[in-house]
Each structure stands twice: as C-alpha cells, then as structure tokens.
C-alpha cells in the first residue's frame, strides 16, 4: 500500500512539473505585456526594459523556470509582481477560505445526497418522485440566481446573515459560520442535485441484484440490506462522483466568492490571470495540481477500502 501511495504521489509530482512547465512556457509569451501592465500608461521602452531586467524576465525561459523550481524546493514561491506579497502564504490563506466553504458543503452534500438517494431508491413511489423533483429543481435553478436571492432575503432584508465578506474560523467561530452559511447552502443545492441522482441510480441497481434477493429470503432486515450491503457497494462509484464534485466546487467557488466578496482561491486565481501576475499564477497552478492529485489518491484509497476488488496491492 505504501509503495502504491508513493508511486501515486511521485506520479503527481511529475504531473505537477509538466503542468507548471507548460504553464510557464505559455506565460513566457506575455512577459513584456505584464511589465507594461505593471507600469501602466506611462510606460516607456526604457522603463519596460528596466523593469523586465529587474524582474529577471530578460533571462532565457528555461533558466527562469529552473530558478522557479529551485525556489519551489526551498518552499519559496516568490512574490506577486503587483503587491509584493509572498505567493505561498497568500495561496494558503486563500485556499483556507475556499476550503472552509467547500469542505462543509461537501460533507452536507454527501449526507443529504445519500439520504435522498437511498430514500428514493428503497422506498420508490412518491418518495422517489419527490427526491427526483428536488434534484431537478437543484439542476434548474442557477447557483448565481439562488445566491443573489438568498442574500437579498437573509442578508439585505432580514439582516440575519452577512451579505459579503469572510471571518476566519479562528477569529470568531460564530461569525465564521454566518459568513459561510449562504455560500455553503448554494453549493450544497447544486451538489445534491447532481449527487443524489447518482446515489439513487446506483442504489436501484444494487437493490435489484441477486444477493439482495438472497438476503431478503434469509430474513435480513431492509435497513441492514440497504445500509450494510447495498449502500456500501453503491458508495464506490458515488465516491468518484464526489471527487469530481469537489473539483467542480472549486470552479463554482469563483462565482460564489465574487458574489459574496470572499477572499478565496477562485477570485485570487481569476484576478492573477487577468493581470498576468506570473508568480501567483505559477503558485496557484502547483497548488491546484497537487490538490487534484491528493483528492484523486484519497478517492482511490477510499474506493479500495469500500470495494476489495478495486484494491491495489
């Protein structure tokens, strides 16, 4: 198992190197543009040259990439060319904000989706129609519209929750809970719409299998069949959906962060891309690749735990 994890992590590192190299090569095409953007409208050819030299963009691209890698291995991702703020701590800070929304949203999504999916599949009839209806509504209602409506009702009118901003958990747990409440609800509704349907489908398949019929004839209770046997078998593909959901929520986070003015990873990445802040884009890229690698690895390990056939030795 350890060898497997090591191999997967090593593969993740190789992937990270390749992705960052490609990103850097693509960014290298716009070094001069970035310098001009930093200097603004009063940029002169002389000032562009001076700043290009100061930032080291006049060196060969591969030398610059090698330099970035060396610093990376020392834990130094450089500083933003606009704000001079260190990239590593900025990315971690922003990632913390985004994860503090996504993780609770994901946990609630899993619980609700499992409940709805199992309920719909095991009860059928009205329960199934209600669950499918809820999923459909979650699909149809755009997250952005929902976010705006919830802000209007809960923050602007009722003043129960903040309309914008983020309070760190360590600073004030109550205020943190309030600041993430609406963003989490929005993410959960979208997530449940997707995942509950997957769980329901898998559960229906499992409940039709021969082993379920056999268990029933042996007098095993429905709850035991559903929870201990069918759900466990259905959980494996649901986990894969969950990992995709996690990555998708990172994408959705950009919109959510914008609407709620949260200083998260998505808005940080978006602004850095708009400005062409090369050290920040590189930092975001490496963190993003590593995050996806770890999530995928975690999913595979969990799958192996749930399904012995999927175990890698």
């Amino acid at each position, binding site marked *: 198992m350890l060898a497997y994890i090591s191999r997967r992590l090593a593969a993740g590192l190789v992937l990270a190197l390749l992705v960052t190299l490609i990103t850097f090569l693509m960014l290298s095409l716009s070094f001069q543009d970035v310098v001009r953007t930093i200097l603004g409208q009063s940029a002169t050819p002389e000032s562009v040259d001076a700043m290009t030299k100061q930032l080291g963009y006049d060196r060969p691209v591969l030398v610059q990439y090698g330099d970035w890698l060396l610093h990376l291995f020392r834990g130094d991702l450089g500083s933003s060319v606009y704000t001079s703020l260190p990239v590593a701590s900025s990315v971690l800070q922003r990632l913390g904000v985004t994860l503090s929304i996504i993780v609770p949203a994901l946990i609630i999504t899993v619980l609700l989706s499992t409940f709805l999916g199992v309920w719909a599949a095991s009860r059928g009839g009205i329960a199934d129609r209600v669950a499918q209806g809820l999923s459909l509504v979650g699909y149809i209602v755009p997250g952005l519209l929902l976010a705006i409506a919830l802000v209007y009702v809960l923050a602007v009118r009722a003043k129960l929750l903040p309309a914008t901003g983020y309070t760190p958990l360590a600073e004030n747990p109550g205020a943190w*809970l309030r600041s993430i409440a609406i963003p989490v609800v929005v993410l959960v509704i979208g997530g449940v719409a997707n995942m509950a349907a997957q769980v329901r489908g898998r559960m229906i398949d499992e409940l039709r299998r021969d082993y379920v019929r056999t268990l029933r004839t042996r007098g095993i209770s429905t709850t035991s069949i559903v929870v201990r046997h069918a759900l466990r078998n259905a959980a494996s593909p649901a986990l894969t959906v969950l990992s995709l959901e996690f990555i998708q929520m990172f994408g959705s986070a950009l919109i959510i962060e914008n609407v709620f003015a949260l200083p998260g990873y998505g808005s940080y990445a978006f602004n850095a891309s708009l400005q062409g802040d090369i050290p920040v884009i590189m930092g975001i890229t490496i963190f993003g690749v590593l995050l996806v690698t770890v999530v995928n690895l975690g999913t595979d390990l969990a799958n192996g735990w749930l399904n012995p056939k999927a175990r890698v030795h």
Partner: protein
Amino acid sequence: MSSTATRGRALRSVAFLAATATATALALTACSSDAQEPTAAAAHNLALAVVTPPNSLDPAQLADGQQMFVWGSVFDTLLYKENKTGELKPNAAESWEYNEDGTQLTLKLRKGMTFSNGRPVTAKAVEATMRRTMTTPGVLKIKYSAVKSVTAVDDSTVLVEFTRFDPQFVPNLTLGAGAIGDPDTLADKRTATDPIGSGPYTLDTAATVPGSKYVLKKRNDYWNASAYPFTTLTVRVLQDPTASFNALQAGEINAGTVQAQLLGRLDKNAFSTTRIEAQAVMYVDILDRKGEKWPALGDVRVRQAINYAIDREGILKGLLQGNGKVTNQIFSPYGKVYDASLDSTYPHDAARGKELVREAGYAGTTFKIPSTFLSTSFEASISQAFKDIGLGLEWVSVPPQQAQTAHLSGDYPLSFQITGFNSDPGDANLHFGPDGFANPRHYKDATTDGLFGTINTTVDFDKALPAYKQLNEYAVKQAFEAPIVFTGGTWATAKGITMLDDGKAPSTARLFGLA
C-alpha cells in the same frame, strides 16, 4: 420494518436537532454581529467599497485612482486637490514656487509633521523618497523624467531641479509622485505591504486581508486630524456591483458607488446620493493620425466622419443608463481647458459622415481594432456607426494583460479606451503629446509643435491656458480622437456620512465627512 421505522425516526430527530442547533447558532451570532447599521458615522467609522485593491504600497509604485483610498491614508502627499474645486492646495508642503523658467521648484514643508513611527518629516525624507522614486523602475519613475536633482536645502526646504520645465510635475505632487515615505524604512521589505508614512491613518495589518479588506486606524497625532473625522477607515474590495450594493444595503459598508440600474432600489430614506458626472473619458483613439500605415486615417475627413457617425446620446442612454455626459473633447469638464462650445462640433449625423468618407475616397475601408474587456459592451454600437458611414470594423480579441501591448504595437489603426482624468497638463500630454499614451505613433505637426512649445515653456498655467484651449480646439477640429462620453458614477452614503466632493478631487478619505 419496525427497525427501519425506528432508524427513520432517529434520523429525523438527528436532522431536527442539527437544524435547530444551526439555526440557534446563526441567530445567536446574528445578535452578536459586528455588522453596523447604516448610521455608522456615530461611531466615526467609514467603510467604503472599491473595485480595485492597491497593488503595492511602496512609495515608488503607487498607482492613482481608487487605489489611493488606501495609500493616500497612509502617506501624506506634498500637495492636494481641494474638494469641489480641484484647485491645488498646500498639504505637507505649505508652499511651492518655481523660478522664472520653471527649471527649479522650491517646496517649503510644514513644520511639526511626524511619521507614524514618531520620526519627524523633514526635507531629507522628501529628498530620499523622491530620489528613490526617480531611480526605481515602476509606475512613478516616468513622472520624474524631467527632474535633474532633488536637494534638501534645510530641514524644511526642498529644491527640485529640472532639465526642462515640466507642466505636469506640480499637479502630480497631489498623487503618488508626491507621497512621502520614511527614509529609514524605505528599503525595508515591509514597505510594499506595510509602509511607514506620515498620513492620517496607519494600516492595521492584523485586521487587513490584502486584496479584500484594508483596515486603517486614525493617527491622533496627525497634523491635520480635523480633516479626517473617521477614527477607522475600512476599504472593502467589492468587484461585483451587486455585492457592493448588497453590502451597502445590509449596512456592511456606509459608502460605495451604485450602478445606475440599481439606484432605483436604494432606500432613499437611509442613503443620500452624489452624482459624479465625469470620472473618465471614453473614446475611440485614432492611432495612425498621419495615415502612415492606414492612409484613410491620415485624411481629416475620415476622422471627422467617424466623429459624426457615433451616436453618443444613444450610447449614453442605452448602454450607460445616462450615467455620464456626451462629449466631443477629452479634457475634463472640471478643468480650465474644457470648452463647452466644442461639444456641438460633431452632432450625430451619419449622412454627413458617409458623405465625407465618400469625398475622401475611402468608402469600404475596414479597420482592425483590439477587443478588450473595456470595449465588449460598446462594440456593436461602434461597429454600427462605422457601417453607417461606409467603413468597417473588425474587433480582434485581446486578453486583458495584452490590451496595452496591442494599443502600442503598431498593428492596429484604432483603439477603444476609457481613461481617467489626471490634470489638464497631464491630459494634454497623454492624448496629444508626441510621446503620449494615446498617440503611440508620435504624431505632431506645426500647430501641435507650436502649442506644446508654449505649454512646455510657460510656467504660469493661467498664461499657458490660451495655448491649451487652442490645442483642445485644434484636436477636436482635426478629430485626432473620437471622444464619446465622460463616464460618470453615483456614490451612495449612509445616514451620518456626507460626500464632500463631486468628482474633482482624488480618491482619498478626505472626500467624506460627517453629516
């Protein structure tokens, strides 16, 4: 079955408990919320929203515009522009005086000023800051391009010597070029993120989240404390207009700009509004004014035709919800060069434009123009205008970070721009100076040469004013650009806060006062 029912009941109980706990926690925390009512002025707190966070707080890298709300609170500038008049006034420098030919500027500093670390603000500090800005690659270095030397003559006198008179230099001292940093910490790494200045506020780094929220605490020992009534200034970065509007209505900020389409939803009893008629000028820049690469644009009739073609009123009402003012010129309506009579030079008259293009023999000519994040909303209207006079436009998509390169590349004959105002001398140079940003092919002719000759050698602005006005009139008649509108905005302030300016002063906390 009974087991299932029991489990179901248990699940429902857990769900109910969880829901109750969450609701209780939310309700309790709501009660202990730090959200302020719109009447936050009672606590002397000003919380305002901006779209752009400050880049760097290094005195050599300070950008103007909304970024000034933060750095303008930490640093004193040598001069400032008065609210509602835009007149240059003493600030850290209590006087300034040029010699006869404008090659020496003597600045007399106010006495008794201190940096936030307690050290005195002296002429040596100004000298050190200016010398560093002159030699540091960055946004401000160019503003010192005519400066030969900076010398602290005594504790409160600074002598700036120039290679030539620079009419933009003194107005620039109200902005980043006039900021004073603490010479002992200028070289420190912290300067870019947590600098020492002599301004009315200090940055509360513990409460600040860079790029999102800046919290500034008032200095009670500031020399001009009465001009800043707010004990805490919070600058929130809210890039989404709806988020900003929601924050305003929810009482999380007490000052912010509101989009025209949202104004109707603002509670008139809780907020007052101030309309800023002109914040920037939107225009189609004619880059090849001599027609070197695109001969059609060297013909004044084609340039005038473009000006006739644009339906300025339509763009203002249809796309900007009336937020602004149509214009045929680029000089700020708040400045002295602006001439209202010029705004009737090019009424919307597509037939006249078409006739001019036909006369010039360029009907059917198509131009490429960069499509940027600024232009997307206006492209259809501008393309239609060109079509109406027998010309064509091809918008070429350009990523945001390449917008400036595209403008300067020489690959495009035209460019769509929205440019903020600086000062009359600054705007004259930017749009029509041979090295101005809006004139990347360095166009000049005998008339512009002569007028800039006067402008750049006349130290007294009022005496140079006729030359500025002639330049404005000449540029409009020659149609070097196709100005469309002055874009405006509306500030909303909560009860207890008042807006003291109407768009003439830079973006600092001084724009706001207690009602």
